[in-house]
């Protein structure tokens, strides 16, 4: 774990003081609150968890969330790997601008994301919405809107993982493969893909965590219809505001469990790869 195993820091009182401060800060800000959600969930044994698993509307919300997340991850992986290859291996006008714009989704408010999608794909006044709806394709207040919102917010994550790996491996091997007569697809599948494999895996895990947990953008575009377009994060809000704290804690606990699992998976596989 330590980056400089050979050089040891001489430890003065300041070192211990800083260490103590950092641990206390993280304990009060993250560890204790997260622990309490687990504790509240199991305050009545398994009742809360069983309660949500027996409610067909919540089961529907969870399965909708999982389906949307899987579709969003597939789209973002294909797009992310493709655009990373183009950004690193090719030269074209506007490359720097595109590279900066690809980061936009990370810093745009989820509510603004929802609003932007409604303005374009909204059924009544959107730019494209009425046209699509007359062809029988409803986007906003339906599943396609939820997918679009989820893809939007998780868009840069695969790219951010794959671009640095592509830069690091360089293109000597790809050039060698091509000069030996491999076509573009063979080069990609046999040479490029294996070398960026782990970057793609991290990107996918991060996108999955982000996609399962999206709340604000989905709230705007989904319409939040019980049993149809309500997702798991919307269930947490609805349960809490309706004084069903047990249900809210149980659903939040399941979501937190997946998020923490994703972090642990990434931190377990990555160091092995680095060494």
């Amino acid at each position, binding site marked *: 774990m330590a980056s400089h195993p050979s050089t040891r*820091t001489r430890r003065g009182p300041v070192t211990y003081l800083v260490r103590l401060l950092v*641990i206390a800060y993280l304990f009060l800000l993250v560890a204790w*609150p997260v622990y309490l959600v687990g504790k509240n969930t199991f305050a009545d044994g398994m009742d809360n968890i069983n309660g949500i698993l027996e409610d067909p509307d919540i089961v529907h919300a969870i399965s909708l969330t999982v389906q949307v997340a899987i579709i969003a991850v597939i789209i973002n992986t294909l797009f992310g790997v493709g655009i990373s290859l183009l950004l690193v291996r090719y030269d074209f006008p506007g490359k720097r601008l595109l590279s900066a714009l690809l980061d936009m989704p990370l810093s*745009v408010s989820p*509510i603004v994301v929802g609003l932007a999608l409604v303005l374009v794909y909204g059924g009544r006044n959107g*730019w494209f919405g009425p046209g699509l709806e007359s062809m029988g394709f409803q986007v906003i207040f339906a599943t396609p809107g939820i997918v679009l919102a989820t893809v939007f917010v998780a868009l840069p994550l695969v790219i951010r993982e794959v671009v640095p790996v592509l830069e690091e491996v360089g293109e000597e091997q790809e050039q060698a493969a091509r000069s030996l007569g491999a076509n573009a697809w063979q080069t990609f599948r046999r040479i490029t893909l294996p070398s960026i494999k782990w970057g793609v895996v991290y990107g996918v895990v991060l996108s999955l965590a982000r996609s399962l947990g999206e709340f604000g953008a989905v*709230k705007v575009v989904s319409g939040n219809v019980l049993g149809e377009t309500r997702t798991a994060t919307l269930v947490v809000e609805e349960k809490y505001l309706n004084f069903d704290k047990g249900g809210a804690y149980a659903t939040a606990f399941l979501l937190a469990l997946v998020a923490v699992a994703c972090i642990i998976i990434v*931190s377990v596989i990555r160091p092995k790869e680095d060494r």
Partner: protein
Amino acid sequence: MTSTALSPDRPATSRRPVRSGRPLTRVSGLGLGVAMMWFSLLVLIPLAAVVVTASAGGWSTFWQAVTNEQTAAAIELTVGTAFAVTLVNIVMGTMIAWVLVRDRFFGKRALEILIDIPFALPTIVAGLVLLSLYGRNSPLGVDIANTRPAVFLAFLFVTLPFVVRTVQPVLAELERDVEEAAMSLGASRFTVFRRIILPSLTPAIAAGAALSFARGVSEYGSLVLLSGNLPMKTEVTSVRILSSIENDNLDSAAAVATILLVISFAVIVLLDVIQRRMVRRG
């Protein structure tokens, strides 16, 4: 650990494609076309729609929507709190990064995972999490639900990873020889930190601070349950936009959203500039 698991930002030195590559072939040109079409339909056209809708009513309508008393209060609260939180993150984030890179003790690995939790946790769950320690039934006896400190706390939670994860890799790459040389020449630890370590970390700290500010300004989900969204008191900009959307007043929603878009675009441009400077130095 030099890994940046779940890092919101990579070490800036390896982020951008600096080498120029080959010119486009026919297949890659087609691929770029398809990718750009998707990116436009998903991101560029919708974001443009926000700005176009905001400007459709002319300057005076825009200005009216933005300077509406309640909206102005929300923008002031959001920007002010995000700024204060960013200052805390600059100090605490650098300190956490220093502990993660330079200190060694049992359980450090657990801290690594704690840092990433705010990034992966769904924001609505983050709100609930904070409420369980700082809400009505707080085991600590502090109830800050529905107050301004709650907004501060929520921002602090969701922006935790940014400065840590941008500073950490840069700190790990620093050469220790220079510090040791300075110390052997009689410099105190504080002087070494101020004159040698801090200048090399400044670009990374600035990049992390910019990301953390942008994230704070755009935060919504963690506040829903925690801050009560009281107008003029704890209502942030995103909540204000949402209530305009729910009242079917898309024009004024777009006007306020444009302000947020300008802030996030400014941050993106700033990051690009910082990263280019770091690449040149490296």
